[in-house]
C-alpha cells in the first residue's frame, strides 16, 4: 500500500522534469526570437512572407511534402548539406532558430528522400521548371521517385492564344494538339511558396562562412 505514493509521485516527477526541460524551457529560450534588423542598411531578416506564398505553404502541408523533404541545413560536421549547396551559395550556412520565427507550423521535416528545400527558391528560381517538375518529376529528373502531382494541373482546350502559363511539355507527356496543361491556383500558390524559400542572408549566430566555400551544385539541373 505504501508503494502507491512512491509509484505515483515518481511517475509524475520524472515525467514533469522532461516536460519542463524539453517542452517548456526551449519556449523561453527561442520562443520569442525577434528578426535581425539593421536600421542603417534598412535590412530586416527574416521577412514574413504572406499572400500567395502563404497559401502555397498550406498546399505544401496538405500534400505531405514534409514526408520526403526537410527544411533545415546542418553544418559541415553533420553532413554534406553545405557542400551540396543546400545552405545556398551567397551565404552558405546552416539554419538556426531565427530563420523560422514566422513559421507556423514549422516544416523542418525528418526525411530526405529528396533534397533539402530550405533554399530551393534561390537555387531553382525558374517557375516553369517547378511546374514541369511537379507535373511529372520523371520528365525533369529521370529516375525520380517523387510522386507526380498532376491533379494540381488541368487540361484546357486552347481557344485563341496559348495560355502564358501552359507547360512546355514534349514527347509522351505532351497533351494532344489543341490542348494545353495549365497549373490550377493550388499549383501556382505552391510554386510561389517554393520560390519564396530563400534564406540566403547572413546571420551572426550561424557563423558566416566564406561565400566561395560551397562546392559546385550537384542538384538536378
Amino acid at each position, binding site marked *: 500500500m505504501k508503494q502507491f505514493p512512491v509509484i505515483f509521485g515518481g511517475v509524475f516527477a520524472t515525467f514533469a522534469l522532461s516536460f519542463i526541460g524539453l517542452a517548456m524551457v*526551449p519556449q523561453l529560450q527561442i*520562443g520569442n526570437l525577434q528578426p535581425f534588423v539593421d536600421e542603417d542598411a534598412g535590412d530586416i531578416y527574416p521577412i514574413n512572407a504572406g499572400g500567395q506564398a502563404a497559401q502555397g505553404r498550406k498546399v505544401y502541408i496538405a500534400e*505531405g511534402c514534409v*514526408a520526403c523533404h526537410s527544411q533545415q541545413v*546542418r553544418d559541415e560536421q553533420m553532413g554534406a548539406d553545405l557542400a551540396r549547396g543546400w545552405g545556398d551559395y551567397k551565404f552558405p550556412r546552416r539554419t538556426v532558430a531565427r530563420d523560422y520565427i514566422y513559421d507556423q507550423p514549422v516544416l523542418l521535416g*525528418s526525411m530526405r528522400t529528396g533534397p533539402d528545400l530550405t533554399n530551393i527558391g534561390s537555387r531553382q528560381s525558374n517557375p516553369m521548371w517547378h511546374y514541369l517538375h511537379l507535373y511529372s518529376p*520523371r520528365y525533369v529528373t529521370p529516375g525520380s521517385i517523387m510522386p507526380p502531382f*498532376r491533379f494540381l494541373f488541368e487540361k484546357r482546350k486552347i481557344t485563341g492564344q496559348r495560355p502564358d502559363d501552359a507547360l512546355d511539355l514534349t514527347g509522351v507527356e505532351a497533351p494532344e494538339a489543341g490542348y494545353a496543361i495549365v497549373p490550377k491556383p493550388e499549383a501556382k500558390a505552391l510554386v510561389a511558396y517554393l520560390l519564396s524559400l530563400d534564406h540566403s542572408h547572413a546571420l551572426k549566430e550561424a557563423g558566416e562562412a566564406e561565400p566561395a566555400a560551397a562546392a559546385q551544385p550537384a542538384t538536378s539541373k
Partner: protein
Amino acid sequence: MTTQTETPSSSAVTSIEVEAVDRALIDASTRAPVMFFYTTALTWLFAATVFGVIASLKMHAPEFLGGWPALTYGRIWPAFTNTLVYGWGCPAAIGTSIWLMARLCRVALRSPAALIIGGIFWNIGVTVGVISILSGNMRPFELLEFPRSAAILLFIAYSLVSVWGLIMFNKRRSGHIYITTWYLLGAFFWFPWLYGAANVMIGHTHGAAQAGIAAWYMQGLLGLFFTSVGLGAVYYLIPKVLGRPIHSYYLASLGFWTQALFAGWTGMTRLTGGPVPAWMPTVSIAATIMMLIPLVTVTVNHVLTMYGRYDMVYYSPTIRFTIFGAFAWSLSIFAAIITSLRSVDRLTHFTQFSAGQFQLIVYAFFTMVMFGSMYYIVPRLVGCEWLSATFIRVHFWGAAYGMGLVILMLFIGGAAQGDAWLDPQLSPALVIGYFQPYMIARTIGWLLIVLAHLIFFLHFLAMLFRLGQPSGEPTLFAAIEEGGDHV
C-alpha cells in the same frame, strides 16, 4: 521497493477453486470492452497493412495509382503511421491494459459500458483523423497529423480509460503491486499528458521550438507509452505461461525507474544538428546513452527468466510472440543508442533508417507482444480455444519474416541512402538509385505481412463468433512433453 521475487498472482490467499471462479468472474467483467477494443484494433491493423503496402510500393513505383491525390506518398505515409499507432496500437494497448489491470488488482471491472463508449469515441476520432489526412487536412508533425477535432476525441476517450484503470487500482484486493501494474499506471498517466500537452502546445507555438515539442511527444509516445504497455505485458505473460517467477524483481524495478527517468529526455535526438539550441540534442544524447541501464536490466531479466525454458518457444504461441517482441525491444534501444551518437547520426538521420527504427518499436516489439497477449487473453474471454495451430504458425512466420525483412531493408537501405547523401558529387537521382533496390525488397516483406494479418484476422473472427475449439487445453504448436501448465 521490495526485492522479493514472485509471480503475478502470488498474493493469493484463497483456495485454488475459489480463485479460479473468482478469476473467471473478473475475466468475464472485462469481456465486452476488451473484445471491442481488440476487434476495432484489428480492423484498423488491416487498414494500416493496406496503407503500408501502398506506401512501400510508392517508394519505387511512384506512378502506381498516381492519379489519386489521397494515395500519394505524402498522404499515405502519415495515414499508415497514424492508423498503425492510433487505430491499432493504442486500442490494442487499452484492451490489454484493462484486462491486465482487472487481473492484477483482482477486481471485476465496473460499468464496462462506459469503456465501450470511450472506445466508440476513440474510433470516431481515428476515422475522422485518417479521412482528414487522406484529404489533405493534416498537421506537418509526425504522429500529430490528426486535426484538432480528432485529437480532442482521442484525448477524451483515453482519459476515460485512464480513470477506469485508476478506479480499478483504487479498489484492488491484492496487497503487493506487481511490476506490470507500475508500467500500466505509468501508461495511464503519461499518455493523456503527452497527447494533451503536445496538441495544445503545437497549436500555440511557432518556429523551431515547435519541432522540439513534436520530437518530445514522438519519443514519449514510443519510449514511455508503448514501451510501458508492451513491457508490462511481457512481465505478466512470460512468468504466467512458464509458471515460474520473474528472475529478479529488483532488476525489474530498476528497469522501470530508469526508463521513466530517461526515456522522456531522449526526444531531441530527432533534432541533432537542427536549428535548436545545441544543449537540447546534447541532453537527449546523454539520456539515450543512459538508456543502457533499462536496456541491460530488462534484457538480462528476460533472458534469465526464460533460462532453461527456451523450449517453450517451440510449444507456446504466447511465449513465441512475446519473447520475439521483448528481444525486439532490446534491439530497438540498442539501435537508438548507437544512432544517437553524432558520428552515426550524420549517416542515419533523415533516412529510411529512422523509419526502420520506428517500425522496430511499434511493430517488431509492441505489435508482436500484443499478438502474444491476444493469444493468451482472447480464449479466456470468449470461452473457446484457438482453432488451428497452423494458422498461428503462419501468422507468426509471416509477421516475423515479413517485418524482419522490412526492417532489415530499411536499415540497410537507410544506411545506403545516408552514405549517398554524404557524397556531394552524387545527384539526387543517383542517390535514389543507391537505396531503391532495398525498397523493392521491402515491398516483398510487406506482402508476407499481409498474408499473416489476413490469417490472424480470420482466426480472430472465428474466435469472436465462438467457432474455436471447445475449452480445455490451450492450442499449442506441439504437445508439451513435461512441465508448463497455463499456456
